[in-house]
């Protein structure tokens, strides 16, 4: 089906995709599942609450809040994050939701971009993505993002690091098996930003991906780098069928 919609058999490797993807939460223990399911116990909701405050706070030289232009996020941001990463029409560049928020700050709010992984950007990202919770991932493949998808797929299958392992070796060939104390999931990004108990904090998908690079002793790409964005796009296509879970809870 996907090969047909994408055409040309360019994505032959996509045929190896899991026919019915399962979210990382399905591989988590009962305690983590309960914590994510309870909106009060889920510590990621603290970041969502902070994001809501920032949404309503004036910033930048425009002295406008996000709400001044976008009004109620529950309607204006509903489903938006499910469609990212996507090509930003003005610059022609691939951006994820973090990048999109920063572009909006610079372009429309006349504010400085927030640093990647700063508490403010995490909170705004969690808040915006949370408005899409329960909605299916809706990243489409087209001529404009095809080169990025192809690069993302190459990275996904590329062996790397001192351990010489590719993403596919763990997240497809060994999903459901144990790696030390962890149960390896299918490696989807649909729950991010997520609260990870190991971090004792909420972190972005790029933070999680960097941890996987570190795990195989490979050089970690920078936050927001083209490599991580291409990978994020590929992951979103690969996870088609799953819904947004932000904020997820993980070990």
């Amino acid at each position, binding site marked *: 089906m996907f090969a047909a919609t994408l055409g040309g058999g360019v994505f032959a490797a996509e045929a190896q995709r899991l026919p019915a993807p399962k979210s990382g939460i399905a591989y988590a223990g009962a305690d983590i599942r309960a914590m994510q399911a309870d909106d009060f116990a889920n510590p990621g909701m*603290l970041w969502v609450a902070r994001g809501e405050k920032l949404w309503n706070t004036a910033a930048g030289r425009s002295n406008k809040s996000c709400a001044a232009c976008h009004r109620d996020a529950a309607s204006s941001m509903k489903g938006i994050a499910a469609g990212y990463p996507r090509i930003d029409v003005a610059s022609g560049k691939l951006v994820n939701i973090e990048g999109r928020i920063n572009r909006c700050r610079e372009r429309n709010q006349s504010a400085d971009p927030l640093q990647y992984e700063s508490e403010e950007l995490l909170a705004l990202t969690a808040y915006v993505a949370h408005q899409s919770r329960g909605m299916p991932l809706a990243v489409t493949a087209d001529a404009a993002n095809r080169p990025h998808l192809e690069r993302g797929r190459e990275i996904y299958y590329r062996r790397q690091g001192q351990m010489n392992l590719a993403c596919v070796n763990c997240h497809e060939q060994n999903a459901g098996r144990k790696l030390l104390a962890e149960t390896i999931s299918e490696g989807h990004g649909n729950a991010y930003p997520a609260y990870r108990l190991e971090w*004792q904090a909420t972190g972005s998908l790029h933070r999680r991906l960097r941890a996987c690079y570190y795990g195989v002793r490979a050089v970690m790409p920078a936050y927001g780098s083209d490599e991580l964005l291409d990978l994020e796009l590929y992951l979103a296509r690969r996870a088609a069928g799953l819904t947004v879970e932000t904020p997820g809870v993980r070990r």
Partner: protein
Amino acid sequence: MLARIEVPRQARRGEIILLRIAIQHPMETGYRPDNFGRRIAKNVINNLVCRYNGVEVFRAEMGSGMSANPLLQFHALAEASGEFVFEWVDDSGERGSERAAITVSA
């Protein structure tokens, strides 16, 4: 300090109600070194009090063994309409508070 509280808006007199509070805080243990090997000063929420119409119904004195972003929950007996007030302070002297009203019917 950012916090979320959960207090039922309504209850019947004599009902046992659940109260919950979650606070965004690093709960720094005092045992961790930073990237240069220097010890990071202990900073935890050392005291949290909840009062119901001025009467203390819950108090927690905490130390290094708590996770970051702690969640505390406890029960209280609904007696009269009024207010629950949560107040806390950490080792750095920063204070926080949250309040919520409850309507108690006969």
